[in-house]
């Protein structure tokens, strides 16, 4: 379960989030909808513990932002996958190594790493491209790699920050379908987007955010 409780976030004199409370249940697919600058990314960063609230708290499974120790944050991040609009892939490693990297940091054994990476790449439909470099792939394929990297540690939740933003319509639709499939298999998905069309066409809960407030 993901929970934010009366969270405020200020940076300098600017209030980025104001009294935000939300709850995402296990296995849910939720859209966080709002225009650019509304505070969507800040919400995701707070849930990923990249930032701490100025006031209020964030809870993720057993981890609470007001009590968590800094050394536990990496462990938490292995339980929550995150994907971005710009994919954030390592340009100097091939697809297999990019995905394996997320397991390497956990100290996983080589054999387990190989098996899991191949399974995950197959799941996102990229098993055959494992030896390619990121620049050789299309935007949609690169986003699939970043999803595979986010999934390879078998997280309970996936945070997606405008994952369709840089993709053409067809690729965006494929990625969206992939996220829906993952959600069907039990992964909680919280997806930040500015695309109101998604809210109208898909049967998922939608949290509206504007000027740092959730409606």
């Amino acid at each position, binding site marked *: 379960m993901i929970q934010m409780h009366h969270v405020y976030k200020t940076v300098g004199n600017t209030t980025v989030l104001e009294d935000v409370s939300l709850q995402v249940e296990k296995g849910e697919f939720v859209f966080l909808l709002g225009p650019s600058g509304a505070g969507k990314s800040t919400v995701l960063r707070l849930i990923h513990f*990249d930032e701490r609230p100025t006031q209020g708290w964030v809870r993720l499974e057993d981890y609470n932002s007001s009590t968590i120790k800094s050394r536990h944050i990496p462990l*938490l991040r*292995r339980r929550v996958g995150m994907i971005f609009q710009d994919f954030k892939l*390592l340009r100097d490693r091939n697809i297999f190594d990019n995905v394996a*990297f*997320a397991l390497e*940091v956990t100290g996983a054994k080589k054999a387990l790493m190989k098996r899991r990476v191949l399974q995950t790449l197959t799941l996102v439909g990229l098993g055959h491209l494992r030896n390619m470099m990121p620049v050789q792939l299309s935007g949609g394929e690169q986003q699939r790699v970043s999803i595979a990297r986010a999934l390879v*540690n078998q997280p309970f939740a996936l945070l997606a920050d405008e994952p369709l933003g840089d993709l053409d319509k067809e690729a965006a639709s494929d990625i969206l379908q992939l996220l829906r499939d993952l959600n069907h298999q039990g992964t909680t998905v919280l997806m930040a987007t500015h695309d109101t069309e998604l809210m109208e066409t898909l049967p998922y809960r939608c949290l509206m955010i504007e000027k740092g407030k959730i409606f």
Partner: protein
Amino acid sequence: MSYVVKEALAGFRRTKGMGLISVGTTAVSLVVFGGLLLILLSLYGLIDQVKSRVQIEIYLSDAATREQILELEKRLKAMPEVKKLLYVDKEMAAAEFEKTFGEGFLDAISQNPLPASLKVTLTSGYRSSEKIAAIIKAVEKEKAVEEIEYGRKWVEKLDRLIYILSFVAVLVTLVIGAASVFVISNTVNLTILARRDSIEIMRLVGATDSFIRAPFLLEGIIGGSLGGSIAAALLYFVHRWLSLRFPSLSLVPGAELAAWLMIPLGMALGGLGSRLAIRRILRHLP
């Protein structure tokens, strides 16, 4: 562990020219630092060589008995400051005088006026005016002693020179050492900044800070040891060549061994530079 080694070596490949610049900067900094160190060491050696000629001459009273002289000798020999003791009797003193000033000078006098003496050669490390004064104080009251002489002005001058040199050595070590840390740390910083994205992604996927730090530290240490080795080899061969080509420079024998100190120093500086740089980056990342 294998991950750390693999990543550290891959780091050089990934940063390409930057890694070389970092190694080169370390080498240049250490050549400057080590070069100055060798020059200072050689100057120390030179001064010590001059000081090794300093002797204390204890002139003995003509009335001194054999027992009193032996007692004085015994006391002097027991002192750690005394390296060598030479007894010069009146005849030997006369012979030495004639050797210096020519024969015939002493013929006009019926009695040999030159006193017998003890020539004290000092152990290295006890050749300062302070130590000499302590020896003199310890024996001047002995009955056998008539007068004590040593090149006081010279020793004091050399002492002052050593004092200044020590001050310069400390200053040079601090200033050049700090400058080396600064330059090396900034160069390493550039190579690490070039991989800021990788570090950000490491954090994203749940890497601990120590996991992120380890390959960079090792890379810094390897780079530092390469830079240090280049500096050490250069200093060693230049020093050797100089001491063979210009023997009169009286470079301290074995001082070139100090050149090899540049390798561990390079490793330490590389590691420290990496640590500072990675800490700076980790602090600014989420």
